[in-house]
């Protein structure tokens, strides 16, 4: 005879499936399965049109590593490294900008703070293409900034800062600044300022004071921000496409090409897998780092 408790547990389970089921099912059907298919394709061969066909092979991965009919080419490695570097620099820039911004906002009257935060987040509500286009205009060959750069002999005449590596970095930092700001701000809001007083009481001051009392408390926010910036920046498509040109090719453009311009689906899928491996490794590394540094937990499901 089932007890009341077991009956109740069953009813709970049923209610769970009725409410959460549709949403979960939708995501499984329309994302998880397609992603699995994509990853699977990386192990197939390609036909003349770039579609996946049997036999199963590791050849696409060899392509990723740079091996082709013409021997070994380091192009892909360079692209990966460049993408990592861009993501890293963009993350660093957003972090370095976010700290002063966050604490600037914190020093303003409480009524003003939401407004100031809003102004930072606002540009990110416009479309990516429009934002990136704006930078294209600002850093393009005919823009005043480029004239300045030309005058300083940084770039040759008729060429702007965009397209180029610096333009990509700028575009990435601009687009992802809010993603770093918001978690960092959330952390800063919860700061226990009495620690600063305790620090002063124990003879610390200036930068050391900040480093030992304030900074550690912002770590959860910082690490969230790093994840929210570095991962999308690494695989970004729009910014390198519009601001990068041929000299600053990143992994996002490379992958996209395999599905649009020069179809080779298995190769593209293999590239994606490798990209995800890098991303996953980075995520794991940061979770370990968070735990070691004692990061706090958010309201997670």
């Amino acid at each position, binding site marked *: 005879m089932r007890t009341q408790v077991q009956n109740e547990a069953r009813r709970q389970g049923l209610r769970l499936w009725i409410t959460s089921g549709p949403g979960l099912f939708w995501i499984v059907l329309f994302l*998880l399965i397609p992603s699995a298919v994509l990853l699977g394709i990386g192990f197939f061969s390609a036909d003349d049109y770039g579609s996946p066909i049997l036999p199963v092979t590791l050849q696409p991965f060899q392509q990723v590593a740079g091996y082709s009919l013409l021997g070994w080419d380091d192009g892909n490695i360079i692209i990966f490294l460049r993408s990592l570097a861009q993501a890293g620099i963009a993350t660093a820039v957003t972090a370095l900008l976010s700290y002063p911004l966050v604490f600037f906002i914190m*020093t303003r009257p409480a009524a003003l703070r939401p407004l100031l935060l809003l102004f930072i987040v606002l540009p990110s509500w416009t479309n990516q293409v429009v934002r990136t*286009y704006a930078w294209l205009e600002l850093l393009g060959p005919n823009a005043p900034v480029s004239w300045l750069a030309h005058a300083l002999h940084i770039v040759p005449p008729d060429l702007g800062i965009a397209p180029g590596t610096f333009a990509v970095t700028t575009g990435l930092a601009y687009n992802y600044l809010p993603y770093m700001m918001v978690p960092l701000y959330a952390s800063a809001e919860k700061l226990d300022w009495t620690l600063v007083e305790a620090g002063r009481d124990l003879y610390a001051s200036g930068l050391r004071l900040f480093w030992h009392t304030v900074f550690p408390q912002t770590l959860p926010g910082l690490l969230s921000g790093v994840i929210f910036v570095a991962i999308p920046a690494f695989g*970004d498509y729009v910014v390198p496409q519009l601001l990068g040109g041929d000299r600053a090719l990143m992994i996002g453009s490379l992958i996209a090409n395999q599905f649009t311009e020069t179809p080779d689906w298995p190769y593209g899928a293999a590239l994606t897998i490798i990209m995800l491996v890098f991303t996953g490794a980075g995520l794991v590394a940061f979770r370990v780092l968070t735990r070691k540094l004692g990061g706090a937990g958010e309201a997670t499901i």
Partner: protein
Amino acid sequence: MSNVVPRRVRAVLAGISWPVYVLLYTPLALVAFYSFAPEPNGVGHSLHAYNVLFHDGDVFVALQRSLILALGSATVSTMLGTLLGYGLCRFRNANARGFLANIPSLVIYTPIIMPSLVFGISELIFFNFVHRTTGLLGAGLDTMVIAHITFQVPYVALTVFARLAGLDPNLFEASNDLYADGVKSFFYLIVPVVQPAIIGGFMLGITLSIDDFTISFFTAGPGSVTLPIYIYSAIARKGISPEINALGTLMIGTIILFAVVHFLITKGREGADEYSA
């Protein structure tokens, strides 16, 4: 708190921050500025670009599609996401461990963490396969809507979940205690309390939809050009042009307007909204 931070430091912070604010809006301001470019073979400023824009039928169609896409996907994702968030908050056994219990987390966080590019390409392949085998879901507005719903649902679910999780757990019981059964409790307690989160989730869905390019790009078909895709193609073809500037300016202006209106509304509602009792 301002007494903790010394005056000098505050000055430095301000000195760094104000220029950043300016820098944030300079590109956008420039777009607006250049949109008032003179007519061809003219000088000074004019509304020529806007004129051309308003007479361009393609733009209006693209705009229409963008709106349908945003509103359609946000509506569905809000419904799915709200139920999802509610279900996980209310009916999940908090002590369950093991693989099965972690599936919802995995499923919900994947669309958020996944890079848009991988997302878009996965959809491309999936819909391509489905279309080839069943003839349904050819690349077009419907595939775009499906993709948009998919990336919005987790955000809505998390928003609703967070709001519910922050509530006193006794509230459900209080409602029962006062003669409301499960269904009545849902409509008289849950929905009103969670309403701000539902609306917030809906607005978030619209924002995500309008902001997206990559996923839309890879799920679009030849006949389903939306506004971001239109702009992107125009840039690819013509590079920088006043018409694009005009379009961009209008989009930026609309967003700013909405943000200001939204801010004023929430400011006005401030006093009545307290959720701990």
